[in-house]
């Protein structure tokens, strides 16, 4: 798998990774909730991109590029493109991004705080399939 972020192929590959990674399948086996990335303009991204992932019990049932927030997902993670890049590069951890206002989270905080290991492994999978990042 070799994916360039951001791109429709990256979204597809990320979905496939989530469906084939045994560690994610195990750690996220109780997770129920879809997530939308709202990637705000910065750098090469000129308008907000919306990437949607329907996550259910350690699998990804749907991964696609959306036109706006057309599906009301359980969680919306919003940040400028450059901050998504920092997370994907491992320059900043997801929790650090949350605590320093670099990443906004909308959704049920009880679920999110209880599921931090799932979130961190979700990000690990994203990092592992990302081979190139547009600058």
């Amino acid at each position: 798998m070799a994916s360039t972020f951001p791109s429709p192929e990256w979204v597809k590959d990320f979905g496939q990774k989530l469906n084939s990674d045994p560690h994610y399948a195990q750690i996220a086996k109780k997770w129920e909730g879809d997530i939308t990335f709202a990637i705000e303009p910065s750098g090469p991204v000129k308008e907000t991109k919306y990437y949607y992932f329907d996550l259910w019990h350690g699998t990804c049932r749907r991964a696609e590029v959306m036109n706006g927030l057309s599906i009301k997902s359980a969680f919306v993670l919003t940040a400028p493109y450059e901050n998504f890049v920092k997370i994907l590069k491992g320059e900043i951890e997801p929790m650090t991004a949350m605590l320093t206002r670099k990443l906004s989270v909308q959704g049920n905080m009880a679920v999110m705080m209880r599921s931090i290991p799932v979130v961190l492994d979700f990000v690990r999978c994203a990092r592992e399939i990302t081979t190139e990042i547009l600058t």
Partner: protein
Amino acid sequence: MQPILKIDLTAHTASEYRIPANWEREFLGGASLAARLLYTDLRSDLDPLSPGSPLLFLVGPLTGTAGPTVGRFVVCGKSPATGLWAESNCGGFWGPELRFTGYDGLWITGKSEQPVYLWLEDGRLEFRSAENVWGLDTYQSQETIKKQIGELGVHVLTIGPAGEKQVLFAGLFCDHGRTAGRTGLGAVAGSKNLKGVAVRGSKKDLPLARSELYAPRRSEANRAVKADNFGDVLHALGTSGVADYADYLGTMPKKYFHRGTMEGVDQVSGSTMAETILKGVSTCHACVIACGRVVDLGDGVRRKGPEYETIVGFGPNLMNTDLISIVRLGELCDRYGMDTISTSNTIGLAYHLYELGILTEKDVGFPLVWGDVQGAERLVHLIARREGIGDRLANGCRRFGADFGAEEEAVQVNGLEVPYHDPRGVSGMALVYATSPRGACHNKSDYFFVDWGQVAPNLGIALFDKQAGAEKSANVAHHQDWRCVADSLVMCLLSNVPAETALELVNAVCGLDWGMEEMMRSGERGWNLKRAINNRMGLTRSNDRLPKALLEPFPDGPGVGFVPDIDGMLAAYYSARGWDPVTGRPTRAKLLSLSLEDVAEEFWG
């Protein structure tokens, strides 16, 4: 700032005190200003429970202005638990209401012959008999005093039976369960026969040097706090919303700091509370977060829900996973008027010593079994009443351990019980606990948040590895200085207000034109002055230490096998601080650089 009302409880007299303008400017308010005001009074030979011992309540320059999470006050003095500097700040509405009376502080000394409470309405002070309030719990006391006054809008701060009995970790409580819990200043009030202070004020037009600048900026700051993820977590889950992450990182200790994991720990978190018993939230003055919990245990009674320290202290600390019992134990402590950190820590020591065979059923009167909190509940009652084994426990874990020849088993620093942010999970807390001016304290620097990622590079507060050593020391010092600024404002640490915002607010309210460096120097000045006060009262470098339990690795969990390099961290810290490595005192050069000439003269000639 407005004047302070100096109150002599022995003579039942009061007079106004004007704060010197240069002290206002250099220390801003709150705890730092209190340190300046009390510097000469806090001596090594001062008995904290004697009539001469001061109890100084102060607000900050932002208190009552509806700025971001600044509806707070601080109470300072000499701690009967530690014999060192005491400070404890508190939310609710009492602090702003005090300010609306036209006073920015109450400086109380002496001892009333009979129990009294104070009733301060604008400029008028009454000493009222507390004979029929004495003995009531904090919730009952607040309601009874309000009824006696018989007017709307009164806010009451009281001690409970534990303060009356001079339990060394008794606190002061207002607005139901808002607490100035740490360092035992409730016992100081009790020693003065002071049951409480009721306030109501009409002077809401507070002194703001540049109100036209302040108003839009504070609105903007509040909007930012409300939009912040962390504010969202606190609003949705309370402070115990971080419990899951603390457990994940290995910063939540279990079994009196001797275990890193526990089956069922997820049953005692803010998330579980939100999903089961949460019925509402409560807030402090003008706070947009509202982290306070309101719960219902199925009996139709709305109760205060526990925050993180109470959850862990009466939960995993005692190997207990029953959230309902934690709510009840927290409420019991509140009603008696005791700090839940120190109470649960000291009880945890009793369970630990019982397991070691150092403490027996004959000593206690009943068995202590991990996970069974019936014993803990009985101990809470005994402590508050100073009955049986409770009379020893009421003196805190250090003295309780010493009573049984096991002081080294007590998880405390300088007599203050360690809170539940374990430095074997995030190493910065090792230095924080060892060097805090009031003993083991997580609020003089909540550095665990920095270790989780809440960095501020512009203040020199960067991200280091969670288990980093000496390279983290200067970072910790910077963070302590920043939090010392917050304590002078008096601003809640949970709101995550950026320093740039705080600087703009301070400049607007105080009419200053400070840059960041000057604001941070004010924090550093306050930190060093508190250190000097402690040095005067006998603190030396040998006091900067960690208890044995925190220097032994967890046998399990995320932090397994790790202990912080406290000696290396301390050496680097002293260097970063400009403190004398032999005596542990701020050097002459450091004191002079902070305009503390009188302290430099006293220490170094």
